């Protein structure tokens, strides 16, 4: 694992969005709307090339 390696954003987002320990409760805030963020980030990926 080379920390500085440029990881393909699409692979990163597969893991960062919708995965990960999900904590519910009123002391936890998440980014405004995870679904909306997911759509936005997918759009970002599409705009820079899906396999970039």
């Amino acid at each position, binding site marked *: 694992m080379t920390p500085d390696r440029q990881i393909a954003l*699409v692979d990163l987002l597969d893991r960062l969005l919708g995965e990960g320990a999900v904590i519910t409760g009123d002391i936890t805030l998440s980014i405004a709307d995870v679904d909306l963020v997911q759509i936005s980030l997918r759009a970002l990926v599409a705009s820079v090339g*899906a396999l970039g």
Partner: protein
Amino acid sequence: MSPLYTYAVARPFDPARLAGLRGVDGAAVTVVRAGDLLAITSSLASGTPEPDDLPALEALARAHDRVVAAVSQLTTVLPFRLGTVHLGRSGVVGVLRDRHAAFGAALDRVAGCVELGVKAYAVARPAPVGAPGSGREYLAQRRERQEAERRAVAVAGRVGADLLHLARDGHAHSAQASTNLLNASYLVDTASVDGFVARVAALDRALPELDLVVTGPWAPYSFAAIDEDMELSA
């Protein structure tokens, strides 16, 4: 009470080893401890980005992964979902205490493992030379192409199942493109990583219809979901 961006829950380690590590917005990474659990955090000055601020969201995603990857070099780590923010240290301690049993069980499940990604792409078949001479020939070519696609999908499915034998667990992601026939994550013992990668390479050589790609090792993002129903511990 300042908001804390929360990257992950981890088994205890010497926080001095995080010296110099910068997280979201360049903030210093710190830990919040509750018993035998640590939360990896940094203070958040600016709030999380708006959903339409794409460069800021990419920066957030990369900062989140940078910190999680660094901590995963030191100890067993359970990444939080991107964009998890808690209100102050006491809030973080509360979550660690409330979910102690569930975090512990999830950490035990991924201990000693890394996540490897495996993607299979259909290899484009060379187009037949020249235009089909007749309608019948055209239909035959099309049928042959469709059958080849079906075979590739089936083979990709078998690859996915075959690799599960070398892993503790597996998780399917959505396809990244129409030619992406398999997009999966595997939870693999660190001692088995070389064997796993070698197996993928062997399959890649043996299956000309597929292009197989390994990504990672990753922190166990795809295997970090905790059991929300697990009884809250005192």
